[in-house]
Every structure is written in C-alpha cells, then in structure tokens.
C-alpha cells in the first residue's frame, strides 16, 4: 500500500508540474488562438536565470525566483509587442511558425550564454527535506509543487471570474471583434496573456528543476510532455489543463511503477506511451477534450 501511495503522491506532484506548464499553453491559446511552441524555451531561460542568480550571483532563492519570472515575462511581453502584434489577422500557421523560430532563438541564447554543459539547478531544499507518513516520503519540493499549483489555480479562477482584466480576457477569447466594440483593449489582453503564461510556465520549470538537481539546454523539452495533458483537457480550457496534467502525471508514474509486473513484451516502456493512449481514447469520446469548447459554425 505504501508503494502505491508513494506513486500516487509522486504522480500528483508530477501532474502539477504538467498542469503549470499546460496552463501557459492554454492561457495564450485562449486569448489569441495561438499554440506557443516556444513555451518550453521560456521555461528553460527562466530556470537558467534562477540557477545563475542563486549559484553565481549568490542571491537567495526567494529573490532569484522573481528575477527569473521577470526575465521571462519581459521576453513574453517583448515578443508579443514587437512581433505578434504585427501578425494580428494573419493565418494561425504563420504565427505558429514564428513561435517555433522564437523557440530556436531562445535555446541558442541559452547555449551561447551558459554553454551546453549540465549546470546545478537552484533549490531551496535539501534532497531529503520533507517527512514520512506511513512509509510514504512526502518531499518538500513535491509538497510545494502541489501547494503552489492549488493556490495558483484558485488565484486564476478569481482572476478570470472577478477581475476586470480577467473578464476582458474571457471576452476577447469568445469574440475578438465584439470585445473591441465593447471598448476592450485587445492588445493589452494579448500582452497580459503572454506575460502571465511565461510566468506560470517558468514557475513549473523551476519546480521541476528542484527535483532534477541539474539542468541542461534540453530541459525545455519537458514542455512537450505536458502537451498531451492540455490536448486531453481541452486546449482552450484552464481547468482542463490542470485536470489533464494531473491525469497524465498519475497515469505515467503509476504505469512506470507497475509495468515491470507485466510481460516484458507489453510492459517495457509502457509508461512512455500511456499519456498518448489516454489522450487518443479521450479524444475519440470527446473530440474537444474533457473541458474544451465545442465550436459550432453556421453553414
């Protein structure tokens, strides 16, 4: 039982990381219908900045973290202001290709700036910090990851339901032209979405790096693992990203934990494909994902 609970705890924490990264994708898609393929590299830059701030500039972790968030928010805002704003009205495919370009530029900047070597990740915890309950180790980093995700989800819920800018973002997502007619500054909404998404994704990356101990320029690939989560949750759904992330995290870790008990021909590497199998299964039943909006067009 302790074995199972340990896996559930690890899966939930891993799922929260996917949820945070997935939230970044969803917020941008919801506001501007753009899938940002540079999300992983925003995470990468933020994590490297936090690591450098702690290890090279000797800042406390709690100061380094906002610095990392600030850098990626600035990148997100600048990219939106200088590039994407000029692309409003262009085909989504063009914008998608531009985000791939940003992805390559950011990764190259990291290699040029920090080199391609593995570097230590910044962590406020010792490896063993946490406590044991009934044979299950509850690590500090995992507990913090779960807590941060819950608080952030509550804050986002409040933001989208109760604040002026949150409502503006929802209105823009529903109908851009109607939002403009109602006097909503769509450009500000886009900028807000990019800044918010960059910050949340970076937070996910920093929390993931704490457990990894070391990071390298491929660290941004973690964002790709979050992709099935947002697809199965529904690309334009904030709550879908969270639920999808947790489902993927749990199934991935639980499958990895039990796959060795299956015959080798089935079990070996099963956890690698499980997220995609679940995604396909759910999309077959609900083509727009668990919480995605069904689009109806008049023809």
């Amino acid at each position: 039982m302790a074995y199972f609970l340990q896996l559930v705890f690890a899966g939930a924490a891993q799922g929260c990381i996917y949820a945070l990264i997935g939230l970044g994708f969803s917020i941008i898609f919801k506001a501007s219908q753009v899938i940002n393929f540079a999300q992983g590299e925003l995470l990468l830059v933020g994590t490297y900045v936090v690591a450098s701030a702690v290890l090279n500039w000797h800042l406390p972790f709690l100061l380094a973290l906002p610095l990392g968030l600030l850098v990626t928010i600035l990148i997100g805002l600048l990219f939106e202001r200088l590039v994407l704003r000029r692309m409003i009205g262009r085909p989504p495919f063009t914008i998608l290709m531009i985000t791939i370009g940003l992805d390559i530029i950011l990764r190259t900047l990291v290699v040029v700036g920090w080199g391609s070597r593995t570097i230590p990740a910044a962590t406020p915890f010792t490896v063993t910090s946490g406590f044991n309950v009934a044979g299950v180790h509850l690590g500090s980093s995992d507990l913090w990851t779960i807590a941060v995700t819950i608080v952030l989800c509550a804050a986002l819920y409040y933001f989208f339901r109760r604040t002026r800018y949150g409502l503006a973002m929802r209105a823009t997502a529903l109908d851009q032209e109607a939002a403009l007619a109602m006097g909503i500054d769509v450009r500000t909404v886009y900028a807000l979405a990019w800044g918010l998404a960059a910050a949340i994704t970076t937070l996910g990356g920093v929390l993931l790096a704490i457990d990894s101990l070391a990071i390298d320029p491929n660290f941004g690939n973690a964002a790709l693992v979050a992709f099935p989560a947002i697809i199965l949750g529904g690309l334009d759904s904030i709550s879908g990203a969270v639920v999808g992330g947790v489902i993927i995290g749990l199934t991935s870790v639980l499958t990895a934990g039990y796959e060795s008990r299956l015959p080798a021909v089935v079990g070996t590497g099963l956890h690698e494909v499980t997220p995609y199998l679940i995604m396909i299964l759910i999309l077959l039943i609900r083509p727009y994902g668990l919480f995605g909006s069904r689009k109806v067009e008049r023809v």
Partner: protein
Amino acid sequence: MVTKRFFFACILILLAGLPILAGCAGSSTGSSSGGLKAGPGVDLNKKTITLGILSPYSGPVAGPVGIPIANGVKAFFYHVNDHGGINGFKVQFVEQDTQYSPQLEVQKYNQIRNQVLMIADSLGTQPTFAIKDLAAADHMLVSAATLSSALAREKYLILVGTPYRLQVENAFDYIVNKLGVKNPATAIIYQNDDYGQDGLTGYREAVSAYHLHDVAQVSFAVNDTDFTAQVAQLKASGAKYVFMTTLPTATATIIATAYKLGYNPQWILQSPAFSIQLLAVPALKPLISRAWVVSQGAAWGDTSVPGMKQMLEDQAKYFPKQQPDGYFEFGYAESYVTYAILKKAMENGDLTRDGLFRAFESLQSVDMGGLLPPAHYGSTPDQRVPTRDSVIYQVDATQPAGVKPLSSDFTGVAASQSHF
C-alpha cells in the same frame, strides 16, 4: 530555329546529367604521386590529410562528452602536425555538429563524405548506428566513440575500449570474485534505447554467469524527468547493488530520488553515466561519492603511464581551458589507432580508403601509450572487440578526474568468454 520543345529537351538532358557529373566528381578524387596512391581527403600537392569529426558541439551531450572527446582527438593530431606530421603530411579536420541526433549525423556525414579520408571521431551509439551502412558503402573507416558491442561487428567501424556489455559483466565479477559476495541481490536501471539494451544484455549474461540474485530490471525513457516509480521499484525489490546504464543528468536525478526515498544501495555506474560535472552539483556531491564507476584506462595525471605526460603537455598547449576529463583522455587515446592506420597506410603507399582498411586489418595490436590498454583487432566479430578489461573506480571529488581506482585492470570470467 530552336523550338521550345528542343530547348526544354536540352535543359532536361542537362539537369539529368548534372547528378552523374557530380557523382563522377565525387568519386574521381583518387590520384597518385611519387608512388603514393591517394583517395578523397588527401591533397598530395599540399601534403594534407583531411579527417572528419562528427560530434555533438551543442545539446546536452556536447559539454560533458562530445567536446572533450573532440578536443582530445585534435590535441593528438596538433601535436603530430607540430612534429613534422605523418611522413610530412599534416592532418586537418572537418568538424560537424551532430547534436547527438542520428538524423543530423546522417545529414552531416553526407555533407563531408567526399571531403574526408576517414572519420576520426563519431560520437554516440545511435548516431553511429545511423551512418554505419553509409560508411560501409563508401568504404569509409569510422573511429567510433561508442562502446556498443553491437557495433563491434561492423567491418568499417573501429571501437576503442571495452564494450558496455562487458563493463557490466566485469562489475559483477568484481563483486562476486574480488569482493567475495555470494548471490548478491542485484538490479539494473537502464534507459530504453540501444545503449541501455547493451547494458541490459551484459547484465543478463552476468546474472547467469555469476549466479546473481536478480531482483529488478527497470527501464526509463530518455525524456523522463521523474524517476520515483523506477526508484520505488528498486527499493521494493531490495537490491543491494544497482547497475546504472544511464547518462549523467538521469544519474543525478535517480540517485537523488533514491536518497529522498531512503534507499541507498551500492550504485555502479556504466562509464557514460558519470561525468565530473556531477560533482559540481552541491546537493549531489555527497550522495554520489559512494558510487562506483566501471571504466578503464590510466587515471588523469598518473605520469607513471608513458603516454600521460605527453597528453598533459598537449592539453595544456592546445586546450588550456580543458579541465581534467576522462573523455578528453578517451579522444586522445582513440587517436593512437587512427594515427597507426594512417602511418601504416602511408608505409604501404596507399592512402585511399581501401588502403586504409587494409592497413587497419594488418595492425593486429595498437599501443595507446598506456592511456588505455593495448587494442587488438582481427577480422571476425569476436576479434573486433578491442579490449575486454575494466577498472572499478570510486567516485572521489578530491581526484583530478573525480574518480580513484578501487581495483587493478582486470578481465572477468564472463567478459573473457562472451561471444558477439
């Protein structure tokens, strides 16, 4: 009057003929002068030999492995060049960044195949797998910086060092025969690719040969970021000795996760699983210091080994920023074989690719200045395994290369009898 149809026909014929002409240009690089036959990559007038390096210069494998090995190769030949070259011929390099990607490796190989006499360094099991058939078709010798036993069978690939599979067998020989542990509870954690499969093959052979109490064989995906499930399995299995066929970043996370879960077995690292850079991670340093590494060769700075003094001088002269590093040493040692082939081919008066292959087959044994044990090459797959010995090292942050030997150089029973 030239009709449109005639004009387009001429264009078509010209376009169809271009690849043929290009192919002729590519393959007609053979020439001879003063009794010396030369192939692609050899300029008899300028007296230069061009060799290829296909290595990751960017990406996660570049810093810990790719760049140090390539530096070792270059340092060796810069020294050769500064001391008159090979019979007056200077060696130069065409270097390509493969990013450790098989697709890029093929692309880069095709870019340089007509410019080089042989590949002096192709890094990685999967990238080298990707070009082995192309190299065979081109009769191109490839010095492969990989220890995959599956690649030892390939006619045009030159391996230097004991294959992964035999490293695993030697590790368990050490535990059973040197330390006298009977029926130890053992496990392996391996990444799910060709490199991992080679480690797993060796592990299974070791289980049978040494009557190990195998309690777990756990795999993970190259892109996995969380290893709780794998480590929980190892912990639940009660394995006392866990072999790791991993790469450094995964090594760090696995050992840290195990420590977090209160699991502290004897970790045994396959040679690529360790990098001295892991010791720069403050939280990891005390955790990894109990681990062993299976590798071979002289410890960095051990000047009792004949080739060490020269290597250190060359490193200081040509790559002063290079830190002490086993991979640099590997690249340098690997180049002894390339040099021996070129020298032999030169003596035979045949610097073509086929001439190089004949020279390689006639080498039999190459002394690598003690940096690695002498390599032996024959023509059957079993004889193409250059060495079968290993040294067990303890991770030790106080040592220049981060390890100190626990055992002398030895070949275990299973490794000496293993057939490929």
